[in-house]
């Protein structure tokens, strides 16, 4: 039996978003935007698209990421897709501060060897690569201005990302462009999607979230997507969501509230995870490493970390972080704390991007922690349209989840 060729290994499935994206690229489309729901297989699509182009063309290919860590991760995925390769390396990390995976070329290796170049968007902006295909991974984390500068010398671009994710930091006062539909500070795919020459491909499924969560998050996305997650459940907690209502406190990092959050997370440790696959069913107990607590403020994270230290059973191994920090991660069980807790009204608390990240990190079960002021907070939000989306998601969570209340003390 002979080993499969690279062309055979990278063959695409009929009707898949990958096939559609590749069709556009081979057809000469200048801009292709692929939008994915959480856990929709973005990185898989990027890695396979790159491997396909590498196998079937002699084109120059560059992959740009928002961060160095994302660059290293995608470089590893692409190398795995390309597999055995005749040259010294198939992927070259071209950004100085990006960690070079084993087997990849480094910035010190001259670019004479044909290899996929992996760089950060910031590096592309400083020195735009002349390339046939420029592929932006996690593209919703890049401003249109950075895209426009970075892609200046690219013949064709493919931008892939999750529109529900938190966008890039913009520290500039952008009110001068507030009336424009296409402005430099906007997320690159949001601007590109409005162009007449753009093809938009929406990925149709999530492989992380269950059907209930997929339905709850729908208001944050412009298209329907379904759950193709294997059947998973916790024996002790039916369904995908439970809700935990706290009494209204003065601050969002009140110690009693944070203690309730810690208790909710510890409920998961030892719970039995049952997974049903075509090969049968498996089960195991959740460990602290399977659990995460996602909050919106670092003061909350600090308080929770301190409280976890006081608990036994490896509680400190529970991951704790802000939505910004945990974006991109996934855990079997997640406790998410509503950013509007204690009536917080800042833009930071109200943005639906943060809500989306917080409610889409779980693979099996979510506990949503809130107090009853959320509706009043959203009613006063300056961006009524975004607030309405946030309200719809919260209503969905409350409708889907089994409610628990923590009494005032």
């Amino acid at each position, binding site marked *: 039996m002979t080993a499969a060729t690279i062309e055979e290994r990278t063959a695409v499935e009929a009707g898949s978003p990958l096939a559609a994206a590749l069709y556009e690229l081979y057809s000469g489309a200048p801009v292709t935007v692929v939008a994915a729901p959480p856990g929709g297989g973005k990185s898989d699509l990027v890695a396979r698209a790159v491997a396909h182009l590498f196998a079937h063309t002699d084109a120059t290919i560059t992959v740009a990421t928002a961060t160095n860590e994302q660059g290293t991760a995608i470089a590893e995925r692409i190398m795995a897709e390309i597999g055995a390769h005749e040259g010294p390396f198939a992927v070259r990390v071209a950004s100085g501060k990006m960690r070079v995976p084993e087997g990849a070329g480094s910035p010190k290796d001259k670019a004479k060897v044909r290899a996929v170049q992996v760089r950060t968007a910031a590096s592309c902006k400083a020195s735009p690569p002349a390339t046939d295909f420029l592929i932006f991974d996690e593209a919703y984390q890049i401003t249109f201005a950075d895209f426009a500068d970075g892609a*200046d010398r690219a013949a064709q671009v493919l931008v892939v990302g999750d529109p529900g994710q938190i966008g890039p930091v913009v520290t500039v006062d952008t009110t001068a*462009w507030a009336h424009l539909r296409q402005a430099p500070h906007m997320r690159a795919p949001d601007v590109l999607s409005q162009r007449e020459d753009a093809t938009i491909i929406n990925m149709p499924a999530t492989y992380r979230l269950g059907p209930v969560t997929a339905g709850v998050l729908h208001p944050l996305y412009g298209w329907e997507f379904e759950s193709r997650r294997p059947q998973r459940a916790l024996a002790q907690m039916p369904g995908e969501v439970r809700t935990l209502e706290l009494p209204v406190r003065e601050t969002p990092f009140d110690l009693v509230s944070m203690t309730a959050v810690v208790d909710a997370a510890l409920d998961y440790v030892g719970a039995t995870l049952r997974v049903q696959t075509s090969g049968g069913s498996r089960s195991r107990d959740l460990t602290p490493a399977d659990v995460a607590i996602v909050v919106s403020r670092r003061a909350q994270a600090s308080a929770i970390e301190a409280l976890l230290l006081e608990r036994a059973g490896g509680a400190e191994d529970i991951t704790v972080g802000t939505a*910004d920090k945990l974006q991109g991660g996934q855990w079997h069980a997640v406790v998410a704390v509503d950013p509007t807790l204690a009536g917080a009204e800042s833009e930071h608390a109200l943005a639906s991007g943060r809500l989306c990240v917080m409610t889409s990190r779980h693979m099996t079960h979510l506990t949503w922690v809130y107090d009853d002021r959320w509706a009043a907070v959203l009613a006063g939000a300056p961006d009524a349209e975004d607030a309405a989306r946030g309200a719809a998601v919260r209503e969905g969570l409350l409708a889907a989840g089994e409610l628990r209340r923590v009494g005032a003390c």
Partner: protein
Amino acid sequence: MHRSDLTEPDPFAEYVGPVVDAASIPAPTPVAEHIPEPRPPAPADIVWADDLGEHTDAAQAEYDLLRRVEAQVAGEPVRRTRTPGTPPAISEGEPMPFAFVWVDAGSGRVIYRKEHSEPTTPRRLGVLGLRELIDNGFRLVVPDQYTAKRLSRAAAAAAAGDTPEAADAARVDRQLAVASRLSYSISLVVLTEALQRAYWLSADLDADDPLAWSRAFDPRLRLAGRPYQLMHSLLEAASQGQERTDATTAMFYGELAAIAAARHPGQRARVAAFQGMNRAENAAKVWDTTDLGLIGRNLVTGDVCAIEVSDTSGRGFTATMSQPFKLRTGHRHVFLAPPGDPAAEAAFVLMGVRATTSGDLIGQFEAVTTRRNAPAVPPAVTVAADAMANGRTLHITEEPYLPFLRSRGDDEEAGRWTRGRTVDRVRPRWGMPADVKVAHTTRTRKEHR
């Protein structure tokens, strides 16, 4: 028809009325941030979101009030920053000249006077005059926000009008829009804002009133009816202070690039203006977080963290950290120290933060050495050990990072994605692989526009 040359009635005065008040312009679109960690500094890392939200705002307001009460007790403005209230212009040859612009109390018209060059007598200012001043590199100085907004409103109204000057007005409008939205503009100096950066004014005085500032500096000075002299003396006060060269330079060239880009309409120019503003704003943030005069205030916001070193090792040190703080693990940080002090050059990475049961946060720091012939003990560890030995508190902040400003130069090809509404399809150079041809079916969810 409205004309804008200086012999005709001032068009600004006539346009002020019907224009929408700047205060009613919608707030900036909320744009959240993605800050994963750890990773090296990136543009997105410069500002952490409002972590403590309104609680920090309240604490900051309380701090500001306290300082202003101290100024009231002192009976004179108290220095707030070590750096100036308004950044100096960087120039290799002649310094950029000032043009003082104010509203004449008698006529209600906008008038101006250049600092040195002719005319040095006050003249009415029209949109063409304003364009000329900007084109010739004058730094506009206005007494207060009212005047700055009046200029902006007038330019916007003239731009919307059907006059021969509309195109010039639109250009001025775009340029003022950039300058007025920067934290510290070099092109448009608002005196009351610059003074508020540099000094704490007595709590019982109105910090938005230029006359109040003038009286506070010298109660005997009578400049009420002499606007040029008043503005000149206030500009002098606002310009005093120690420069921080790298941030100042970045602020200057960032703004210069943005103002130059704003001469033109269109998406390509907006992208260039945004990038220039981005660099200027990042530099402004550095100006604020590294200013030794602002340490107390920055401790309240968490932009600066006070540390008590408890242990040092060969490569790093451990310290108790003040709260709140906005420092991030995996990121490079620096000590706050006067320019020239070796401590100012020592960089280190916050490796991790551990919470104790008593609520203290302990930071683990590792020194960064970039020099080839680095000393055996890294400078950051030397500074930390010295502070520990002397029981001295150190102040740290994130290492300044100033994003690149791409030089567009004469690159005719620049702007592939911003020049027009579409980009031509590329002529396919490679045949459509059979698997893609077969796999591309109508079952794919796809929109073509």
